[in-house]
């Protein structure tokens, strides 16, 4: 199939998926107690006030009409109003999301910087002791809950040796976060650990695959040295598909951020979500779910497309 056709079909699919997600989120919002009236008028509103509000806002109309209204609001960036924080959900997310992105991007960069060389080294030393040791370690890291690793790190680095503080940098702006780099160490390391485990596996597999390709044999036969082949050809060819896997990893990154932010009291979107879960603040919860779901769909789409462009042999991807 020609690339343009594939792109169009794949984007259309992604839009359908996002639409289904909005139906689910809309359905949940409506099944929940309270509704937007309670969010905006507060818990002391009288039933008359609520009826009047519902009528004004069109909330007494049939559900499909309301769904279309909800969609229109979404397109205008309106995610509703928080029950407890008396602020628009979109505004809350706008404040918190950049900080979560700082944390996840830093974790991803640190994770990749460790995982890529590790995976390549494993591929070169395939089936030797080093390969087995790293494979076992990544197996264990994959099965370790993020918060358990965080707790152990807190115990070791704030109690046994006092190298790092146990709280992530506080403050409202991204600049304030960067002003305290030492406090970022434990949260970033905690977030990066499972990345190292997963992406060293991908890199190992990609490197092995490339090492068995004809062009490597040709280069060897032409007298190129192993090191030159490895870095000039194999590394470059393995890099793009492995980095594209990041697209599939978006939901895991957000899940990790949720736990890391809760553990280290880092005021990002994860902590916002967790506090909203504690106080049953449904508009905030579902607003976050919507943002994360869209990010996941876009990530998957990008990963599929990149893989196809890089390697025309890949057909269809996950779809």
């Amino acid at each position: 199939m020609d690339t343009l056709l594939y792109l169009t079909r794949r984007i259309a699919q992604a839009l359908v998926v996002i639409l289904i997600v909005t139906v689910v989120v809309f359905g949940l919002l409506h099944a929940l107690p309270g509704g937007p009236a309670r969010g905006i008028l507060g818990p002391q509103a009288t039933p008359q006030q609520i009826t009047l509000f519902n009528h004004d806002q069109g909330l007494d109309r049939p559900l499909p009409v309301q769904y279309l209204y909800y969609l229109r609001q979404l397109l205008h960036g309106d995610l509703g109003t928080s029950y407890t924080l008396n602020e628009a959900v979109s505004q809350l997310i706008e404040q918190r999301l950049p900080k979560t992105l700082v944390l996840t991007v830093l974790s991803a960069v640190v994770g990749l910087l460790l995982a890529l060389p590790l995976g390549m080294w494993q591929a070169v030393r395939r089936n030797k002791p080093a390969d087995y040791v790293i494979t076992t370690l990544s197996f264990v890291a994959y099965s370790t809950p993020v918060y358990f690793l965080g707790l152990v790190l807190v115990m070791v680095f704030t109690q046994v040796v006092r190298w790092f503080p146990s709280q992530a940098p506080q403050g409202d702006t991204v600049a304030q976060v960067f002003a305290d780099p030492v406090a970022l160490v434990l949260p970033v390391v905690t977030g990066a650990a499972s990345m190292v485990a997963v992406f060293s596996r991908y890199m190992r597999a990609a490197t092995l695959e490339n090492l068995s390709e004809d062009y490597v044999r040709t280069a060897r036969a032409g007298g190129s040295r192993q090191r030159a082949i490895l870095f000039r050809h194999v590394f470059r060819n393995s890099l793009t598909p492995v980095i594209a896997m990041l697209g599939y990893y978006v939901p895991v990154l957000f899940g990790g951020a949720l736990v890391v932010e809760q553990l280290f009291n880092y005021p990002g979107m994860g902590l916002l979500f967790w506090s909203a879960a504690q106080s049953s603040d449904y508009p905030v919860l579902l607003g976050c779910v919507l943002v994360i779901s869209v990010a996941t769909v876009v990530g998957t789409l990008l990963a599929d497309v990149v893989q196809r462009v890089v390697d025309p042999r890949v057909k269809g991807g996950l779809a």
Partner: protein
Amino acid sequence: MSVQSAGRWGLVAQFPAPLKARFARNKLAVAGLLVVILFFLFCFLGPLLYSTDQTHTDLTQVNLSPSGAHWLGTDAVGHDELGRLMYGGKVSLLVGLAAGVLATVIGTLWGSIAGYAGGWVDAVMMRVVDAGIAIPALFILLVVSAITTPGVPGLIVILGLVSWLVPSRLVRAETLTLKRRDYVLTLRAIGGSHGRAIARHILPNSVSTIVVAATFQVADAILLVAYVSYLGLGVQPPATDWGGMLSAGLTAAYSGRWWLIVPPGLAIILVVCAFNAIGDGLRDAFDVKGRG
């Protein structure tokens, strides 16, 4: 050609070694099976040998370090930690197993129907799966926990309902190839119903894919329930599970009470690793494609 030469030339190799033998060759998988059996014995028979009170708090016995009387010390409300490890393990193992199996059953039904029906039914059903995968399970679980406080049966159902998506994709892929097989076409030609084709041919022939998926599903479910409980939204006290035991972990970490953190954490890692190892072993023994 004699029988011996047939063997030498690899004709006998067409009859692979029995499944059990191939599984047994995978040392990691056998170790995994052993770990799982030991943990079941520990959690379900352990309390008979090491009996502790896990329902009443005892404020005269809080935060004790490990000793002869309390092998793993006590927690902040005076529960014996080793006993609690058994008590919480029951919930972790039961919920993980049941939710993993439930997710596999739902996924198998959904995937086989989508794959068998094909066309627009398949397209719609699989877009629903895409949408489900786009909403990360941990987040949807926390939303549900904010609405209601689930008990153990509720937790199993909810976990099953959010994690059937990956098995459904695997079974659908399997069904797509199986439904073109001669025996399925023959059954249809002689008037067998669609339901019969799925029940008698598609599902029995997908059993290896399904079993492998179920094993990984159990590992994931144990991890997932540990996350939800850790975040304080799983089973409620006095009941607990390994994740719940860690929900007060930060206080314990600050005061250096490692015995409240390390045992439940290691238990989770060991059991999840073990189920993953069993899944790997089964996948190699069945020779099916699955999670890499």
